[in-house]
């Protein structure tokens, strides 16, 4: 019997956003919206939180806003990846 899909946790959404920015480099909000599969409202909320925590840096050029990953953001991705591997050993998802 397949299990019903659980809604993504805030941590999972953080990880999806940060990994998108990590993989794509300087990333526009629309690209993050598409890759992280978020509504516009949720994107604005989560991006604001990540910038406030110093994990992402917001920059501006002639074409508009874009985001870059900070060293703290990279460290947070690695911490979450390790936590994900650890909890997988006990059958926990986040």
């Amino acid at each position, binding site marked *: 019997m397949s299990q019903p899909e659980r809604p993504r946790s805030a941590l999972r959404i953080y990880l999806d956003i940060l990994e998108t920015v990590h993989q794509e480099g300087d990333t526009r909000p629309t690209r993050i919206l598409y890759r992280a599969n978020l509504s516009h409202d949720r994107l604005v909320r989560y991006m604001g939180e990540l910038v406030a925590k110093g994990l992402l840096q917001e920059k501006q050029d002639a074409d508009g806003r874009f985001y870059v990953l900070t060293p703290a953001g990279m460290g947070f991705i690695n911490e979450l990846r390790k*936590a994900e*591997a650890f*909890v*997988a*050993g*006990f059958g926990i998802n986040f």
Partner: protein
Amino acid sequence: MILSVIVNSILNVLSAAVALIVSYYAYKTNRLIGSQLLRFISVGFLLLGVGLATEGFTQALIGFTPVQVARFTGLEGSVFVIYVALQLIAYLTFATGYALGAFGKARPLESAAALLPALTTPRVIRLLVFAIDIYVLAQLGIVVLLLFVVVQGFFVYSRNGSVFALAVLSGFVLILIAHVVLFLSVIYLSTDLYLLGTFVQFMGFLALLFFLYRSSHVVSA
């Protein structure tokens, strides 16, 4: 004889160190993601680590293993009751944590109650009637609880197929085998079996150490 005590003590203290490291990682990860099962795992491994360290240091201090004490005095495990009680509570904690995961959002008491059918099968009751010694009884309880933990670990691995789940499952399977051997060692009062059980238990903790090493070396590409 002294050599077996030294080897037993060293293996127990090393196993205790691994248990305490796993407990710390579970605590640290729980602070990041907040999971009920991780809280149980952290507390369980903490108790296990304290229990194993107690056994290791007690053996080193008095110069005898529990089986040797039982053979010479007839007081099976009397000096090791604290250690075995801590282990029993530790495995009960793991089993309750896994039961909580397996039985959804049931309350802890209801989840623990889900273990009762396994503990009250006629075969187990018959064994309990004969197992009058507290040490033997506790070892039997540990084996039953570990069996439940191993079954849950198998379900976890069959669901996610992760190498990390396999490492945890391997660790618990080895610890289960170790406790079956330890149970037999107190039944037959065999120091050799006791040493073998401690060694297999140490191998189980090595599997958990491998799991820790692999999971802490995962980095984003």
